[in-house]
């Protein structure tokens, strides 16, 4: 399944640094995020876009991870030639990350559709 089924995400920017949050819909899924959304996988996912290091901050109480990616915005929002100079669309791209299907675990979206809180 895609990360999009487990988590939501928002991108922010400062200079040439992009900041992407990944937040579990269901806090019970947080360990999956911790296990499969590693800085190494994020860096690999954004190969060709992110040229610097990727640092991950963990916020287990919020069921969230926060990624800080350096040299990610074409030299900086104010000088980038990119169509999306702020990198606002990066969060949606990260949600396309593949997460292994696990036995017995329904995705948060399916759960929401069936009315589970």
């Amino acid at each position: 399944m895609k990360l999009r089924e487990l988590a939501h995400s928002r991108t922010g920017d400062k200079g040439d640094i992009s900041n992407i949050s990944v937040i579990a819909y269901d806090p019970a899924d947080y360990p999956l995020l911790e296990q499969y959304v590693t800085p190494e996988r994020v860096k690999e996912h954004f190969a060709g876009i992110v040229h610097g290091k990727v640092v991950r901050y963990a916020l287990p109480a919020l069921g969230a991870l926060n990624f800080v990616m350096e040299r990610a915005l074409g030299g900086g929002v104010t000088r980038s030639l990119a169509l999306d100079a702020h990198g606002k669309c990066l969060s949606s791209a990260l949600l396309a990350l593949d997460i292994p299907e696990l036995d017995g675990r329904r995705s948060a979206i399916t759960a929401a559709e069936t009315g589970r809180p």
Partner: protein
Amino acid sequence: MQTLRIGSGAGYSGDRIEPALELAEKGEIQYLVFECLAERTIALAQQAKLKDPTKGYDPLLGDRMEAVLRTCRDKGIKIITNMGAANPMSGAAKIAEIAQSLGIDGLKIAAVTGDDVLESLRGADLPIIETGGPVSALVGVVSANAYLGAAPIVDALKNGADVVITGRAADPALFLAPLIYEFDWSMDDWERLGKGTVVGHLLECAGQITGGYFADPGIKDVSNLARLGFPIAEVRADGSAVITKVEGSGGKVTAQTCKEQLLYEIHDPGRYLTPDVVADFSSVSISEIGPDRVLIEGGGGRPRTDTLKVSVGYVEGYTGEGQISYAGPGAAARGRLALEIVRERLKLTGVRTSELRFDLIGVDAIHGSALSASNGEPYEVRVRVAGRTDSIKEATRIGNEVETLYTNGPAGGGGATKSVREIVAVASVLLPRSAASPQIHYLGA
């Protein structure tokens, strides 16, 4: 005072205006804050001020004040804003003029200056945070503004200001200042300053916490975004707060919207640097306590640092750009052919660029080909070529080479556009606190 109600009337310079009026009329707020300065905004405002010394404040200052000033005056709502941009004094004069035209008497307006540190920076050998190089090596510097903290705004409120207008101030400081003033927090009560900074951070992007920048149909639905309500924080003296919005307005306030905004561009959640405090967001807890009511607790802070961040704006050449569309069967192939033609033309005609970019919008323009793999052929594509140059003349030639595809390129190219703009880039340095000396000026209306 049990709780203080603060409304956020703008999340950026060009933001919607009527949600702020809705907050003033129906939000039962005591403060209305407008945060309107992005990283580069002040450099652009400085250029406007160089052309006309009476300008350089936010272009929408007049419209916003005309919309809310009467209601705020009638209800005793105080206004705090960084819409002074590069010229808080002229911004204050503009507000006084509007007050007069609305027949408002006895309004006390405070302008905070001292964030402009261009003179202190000249000849200084400070390293640029982003590149490590010396700031003295930057050519074409147009502005240097330090992020001021809450202190001068607190002083203005103590002196009875109804409206406080600043230039560069840390975004959360605009919200922290009324908390410090109303709850009589000490300027070294790091725990509360940290909690107040959390509240300020949650509010500073306005609609981004009430359902804006959030909707994803089918997964994250948000109703009535055309009538999005802006946020209100009900803050208690201990620094905890409930985030809510005007009843009946569009959007929603949920734990999810609050979590996304809490982590928005903060980098290390345990160490969010502001001029007032090193705030800790990592211990914040977020819980829904009612419809569109979310309780924010926890968070804290440690002593502030000895330096202030300074944004240095400088002119770094020009960007030239051209676009043209192709549609129907074979659109993508014609688009790719168009890009190849322009690439060759720019070489053949010797256009001097330091960086070039060739995009096929609708195919792989945003994230490149690796992430954009798709099965279907798009019905339409838009060709985009952008480049960085040293002169306007060279930049103009880029768009021209796209436009000439009309009669020289692939079949059926339409809707060509071209543009040239000056690049105002921003670098950051850290300056000792003593180099910036905030001042407050009062105007009456």
